[in-house]
């Protein structure tokens, strides 16, 4: 699966979006995330696994406190997809205009 598709799958779940939102303020441990969300700690761990595989979240061992933080690489993949979406659509539009212009018979010059 392409990386950006993994990002979209990860963000398709509301709890995972909440986790990503919480991490905007800074790195948090699993316990801190579970305390802030209406889901169990094992559920949070499961969601964090999905988010790590998608590249949205990274894990850091920091002494006695192991934390998760946001990783810009995942959002970059999302942006890449959005770029491609509009590139493809506008390429088709431009081709249509070229075909439309080319199909119009040139006016004969006035005498």
């Amino acid at each position, binding site marked *: 699966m392409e990386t950006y598709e993994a990002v979209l799958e990860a*963000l398709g779940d509301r709890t995972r979006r909440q986790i990503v*939102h919480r991490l905007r303020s800074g790195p948090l441990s699993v316990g801190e995330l579970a305390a802030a969300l209406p889901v169990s700690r094992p559920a949070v761990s499961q969601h964090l696994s999905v988010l790590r595989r998608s590249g949205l979240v990274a894990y850091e061992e920091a002494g006695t406190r192991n934390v998760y933080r946001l990783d810009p690489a995942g959002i970059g993949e999302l*942006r890449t997809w959005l770029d491609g979406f509009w590139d493809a659509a506008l390429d088709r539009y431009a081709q249509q205009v070229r075909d439309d212009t080319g199909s119009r018979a040139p006016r004969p010059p006035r005498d």
Partner: protein
Amino acid sequence: MPANLTSIEPVRKTVTVPAAPPRAFELFTRHIHEWWPLATHSVGIEQAAGVAFGEGPGGQIVETLTDGTTSVWGTVTDWEPPHRVAFTWHAGTPAAEATRVEVTFTEDEPGRTVVLLVHSGWQHRPDAASAREGYHEGWDQVIGRYAELAAAAR
């Protein structure tokens, strides 16, 4: 917090076409069904039958599926032929906080138009009440709808 850590900056795309703005505008809007790549860019994918661009403010951009059902992608907010059109973009989901697309048509030499498309509204947009709780519903809705659109477009 780094500005672009989790927000998506507006997408800006430019294409130059061999037509004057009135025709470029008309082909983009009224004739969208002649070029929009439904096979890859739609809610229905293999069931997508067509798309229509409603004209004027409030006009809807609507996909029709082979079973006759429809899916609204967005609603026109600004209709200024031949130079500008803007619309919300929410691809079939309720449009509480859609993203926004603006397209401008500028003649750079006779018979040639530069078309600029800006897709914005992806950035984090806090609202006062939820900001106190640290959770931003608007962002959640935007990203959620984007994920649904993108998943449907695969």
